[in-house]
């Protein structure tokens, strides 16, 4: 086995939390709001069952192929040739996705704190830091996630409390004024982000205990709850103008002002946000590097870390000419592209695996061959 580190199920749950939310909180509220309007906060609730479904699918696949991840068992399920093809499709997807993630991060940093810095510098900085974490292995990423989680959660928990004077709860009315459809349409975008639970497939084989399911579910619930709370706060503070804001949640932090003394909290929040981004990006980076090494059947992944990081930097610049086009992609083609790879393909894999197993159990010949 390439990776010798072991993590606990709790650490896995902790990694997945910023692994979804770090970019979800930034980009999702404003694009969800364009469809869901004041029902912005209901959209994550619709998306939650899909998140649970993804966790369940990967748990089942993990049960059938213990110690293997999606790159490896796609070969077992579909045969060598198709499995390898699917593997490279997945690797390409991870590369593409990591390009999106780091671009979102870089655009956020550029627009909010470093407007005069070339974007490449921000991207390369983050990639280098993550490269060292990935070289350290899964344990290093898990432990850094554990250290950063309280920091990352703290502003999210306090956010509602601090802007209490600015809130206007009537903004959320009428609840489902135009029926159920707007919030269902809005749910497409949280689903895109829940799909990132696919990276759990790379963590499950390294678990020390068997509580992966429990902590995966708790992670989905915690993410949903956080999204609902942040979306509610955004709606309470901004109402209908949420759609016009690029980063609504960050703008809420800008509104915090206690006793004319406690202000500019957003600068702290942005600093803390970088830690969450680091965990998310390291996770995807790690999955990609490990996947490439396993796809090639080599014994060590460490030498691939930097070349792949270099490719990620290039992809982050190549994915979209600007942030607006990226948002455009997420709302149109992306809302089918991400779920098709992260949800439908794994479901299909599980389906084929189950049929194969049933067939094997029935015919005694194949069991003798085994």
């Amino acid at each position, binding site marked *: 086995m390439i990776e010798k580190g072991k993590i606990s199920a709790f650490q896995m749950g902790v990694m997945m939390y910023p692994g979804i939310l770090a970019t979800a909180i930034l980009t999702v509220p404003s694009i969800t709001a364009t469809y869901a309007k004041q029902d912005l906060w209901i959209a994550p609730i619709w998306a939650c069952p899909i998140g649970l479904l993804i966790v369940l699918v990967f748990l089942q696949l993990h049960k059938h192929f213990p110690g293997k991840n999606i790159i490896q068992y796609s070969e077992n399920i579909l045969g060598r040739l198709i499995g390898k093809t699917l593997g490279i499709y997945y690797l390409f997807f991870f590369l593409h996705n990591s390009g999106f993630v780091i671009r979102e991060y870089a655009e956020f940093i550029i627009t909010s704190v470093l407007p005069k810095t070339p974007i490449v510098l921000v991207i390369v900085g983050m990639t280098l830091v993550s490269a060292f974490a990935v070289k350290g292995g899964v344990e290093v990423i898990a432990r850094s996630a554990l250290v950063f989680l309280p920091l990352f959660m703290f502003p999210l928990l306090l956010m509602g409390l601090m802007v209490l004077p600015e809130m206007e709860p009537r903004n959320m009315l009428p609840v489902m004024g135009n029926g159920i459809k707007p919030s269902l349409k809005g749910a497409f975008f949280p689903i895109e982000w829940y799909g990132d639970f696919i990276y759990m497939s790379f963590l499950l084989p390294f678990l020390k205990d068997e509580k992966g399911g429990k902590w995966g579910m708790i992670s989905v619930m915690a993410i949903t709850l956080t999204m609902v709370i942040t979306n509610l706060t955004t709606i309470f503070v901004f109402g209908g103008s949420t759609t016009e804001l690029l980063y609504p949640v960050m703008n809420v932090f800008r509104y915090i002002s206690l006793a004319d003394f406690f202000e500019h909290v957003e600068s702290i929040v942005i600093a803390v946000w970088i830690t969450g981004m680091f965990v998310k990006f390291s996770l995807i980076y790690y999955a990609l590097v490990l996947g490439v090494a396993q796809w090639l059947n080599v014994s060590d992944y460490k030498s691939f870390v930097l070349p792949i990081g270099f490719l990620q930097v290039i992809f982050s610049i190549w*994915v979209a000419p600007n942030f607006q086009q990226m948002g455009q992609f997420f709302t149109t083609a992306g809302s089918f592209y991400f779920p098709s790879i992260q949800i439908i393909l794994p479901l299909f894999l599980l389906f084929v695996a189950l049929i194969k197993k049933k067939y094997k159990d029935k015919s005694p010949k194949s069991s003798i061959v085994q």
Partner: protein
Amino acid sequence: MIWTVFAITVGVVLLILFEWPKMKQNQKKEKAAFVTLTAMGWLLAILLVFFPDMPGPTQMIEKLFKPLGKLIE
């Protein structure tokens, strides 16, 4: 533009100098994959410097999924 190419090349050379000595003699496959990945990266970077508007992976996916994307608009 020539300086960007120069900077990219220097970066790639540094990357190779950093990683190459760490690989062992018998890791033939690793070395081949490492060289391929780095060369791919270098080539793509240079291409993007000269043709920044080169259609990328996102445009490809967009073409494939556009009919579906219109459904929710």
